[in-house]
């Protein structure tokens, strides 16, 4: 889980947060959409990244805040997907 978390965090920090204080801003539970860190294109690129990096398939109905709205949500979602495949 820690590895999943670090991978996702690093991707968001690299691609979407350019502040020097990025590390402080990106808490695990911050709402990425509401805080204006990601927009709809950002979510699409996150989905592409998760699919490629973790070898999972993100179905349309799974594209919801409960799965992708925050770092915490993504970590849990990817964890569940990987467990199901294992």
């Amino acid at each position, binding site marked *: 889980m820690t590895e999943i978390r670090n991978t996702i965090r690093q991707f968001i920090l*690299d*691609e*979407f947060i*350019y*502040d020097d*204080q990025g590390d402080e*801003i990106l808490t695990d539970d911050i709402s990425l*959409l*509401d*805080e*204006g860190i*990601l*927009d*709809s*294109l*950002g*979510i*699409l690129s996150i989905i592409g990244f998760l699919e490629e990096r973790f070898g999972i398939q993100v179905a*349309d*109905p799974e*594209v*919801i*805040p409960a799965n*992708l*709205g925050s770092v915490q949500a993504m970590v849990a979602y990817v964890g569940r997907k990987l467990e199901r495949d294992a």
Partner: protein
Amino acid sequence: MTLVHQFLENSAQKHPDKTALVFREQRLSYAEFEAQANALGHGLVELGVRRGDRVIIWRNNSVETCVAIFAALKAGAAFVVVNPTVKQEKFLFLVKNCRPSAIITDDRHLGPVLDLLPEAPAVSIGKQFLGHPLVSSYTSLISNQPTSPPPVRCIDRDLAALIYTSGSTGFPKGVMSAHYNVTAAAASITQYLQNTPEDIIINALPLAFDYGLYQLLMAFLIGGTLVLETSFAFPVQILKLMQKERVTGLPGVPSLFSMLLQLDPSLLYLPNLRYVTNTGAALPAGHIVRLRELFPQARIYSMYGQTECKRTLYLPPEELDRRPDSVGIPIPNEEVFVVDKEGNQVPPGQVGELVVRGANVMLGYWDDPQETARTFLPGPLPGERLLRSHDLFWRDEEGFLYFVGRQDDIIKSRGQKVSPKEVEAALYQIPGVAQAAVIGVRHPLWGQAIQAHIVVERGAELLDGKTIIRGCKGVLEDFMAPQEVVFHHQLPKTQSGKINYIALRRLFEPSQGSP
């Protein structure tokens, strides 16, 4: 109605219990919204906001953002909504340019605000920094305030909003909309959309973008309901929300419709949908066909405009089949002309610049007399001014208008104007960039995509496109960052040694320039 905040006051008087705004689990009736806006209006007056001042609102779509817009107006000030993805450097430019008397923001942005401007009073919607002497809390500011409007008199010539848009000089320009400009535009648009108090409009477009902002203003003008979201990033969730709230109006841009059309059609059951609007770039013909199949009861409007007059043209939905390539006719109570370089009207079929005459035309650009001067032409009546669109059009015998291209080098991408100079300035800040030129290339959904042409300094050969794009995103809003980077040993030059943009465009977009 003459003042923009009267949209709210009037609807609150007519139907106080009707739902004005839905945002997530929050639902506010008109009476509740009006009371909160009045309370914050009083709070802003207490903070020192006066008639004619500007109030910056730097926060994503939220209840507080909507309330703050009306509260600023009620305090006699103009509101300035700043996109949440704006970076520090640009924010500092905006503040220096519009000199706000208050900044309403949240925890995410308050840190930078306080770092940059220790003298500006701030209103915090968040929880941090509340001990700071210049920070007042939104919650305490609205508590114990009268729920009647602040006793501030203003007239419809007063400024209602500054909406920043990209300028050809590379610096953002603040479009000055007086109350009468906004009321004229909102009245005209709601007329052709045939809006009624029964309308329930979804808005996931940023309120910092005029297309998003007017959804709020128009919903309140007609006494309808606005269902607010922060983005269309979670389409399935938004579609469920639209079903639940029985949404009747869907404003969008081509990339949104393209995303919706990729979903399983069973998710797209929206029996209450009465109209769909599109602007920013033309909808591909195939998308129009599919949207009609999916929403047979909905009217589809394609529209064209610029922030400077809010909206310019719309195509009546019944004309869509006859003239799929036209962007339509002037909106109600507005007229347009196609003119040559001398400002004379050209006959049908001939290409010229589109100029606009109407009460929806802005007052000019804030604190920018030069840009203002080059944007207006004298009108037919003494003292009257026509707005230059800087866009080339032709009109047919029946008066329908057809877009040909832009006259200046401004790029229009995803419905927003992007100044190549502003992007180039960001590129030159990246270590290793020796020369940079930015052009727009045609994109099927965005209108244009942003392409950067780069020559790197000796020794910086390892600089790659990804690093360059990332560097741009560090200072620019996301929609302004290039999507593509092309590396050159040298850029084409004109005889006088300047970068030859015409040659670049011809090389990278061979079809451009042939109407």
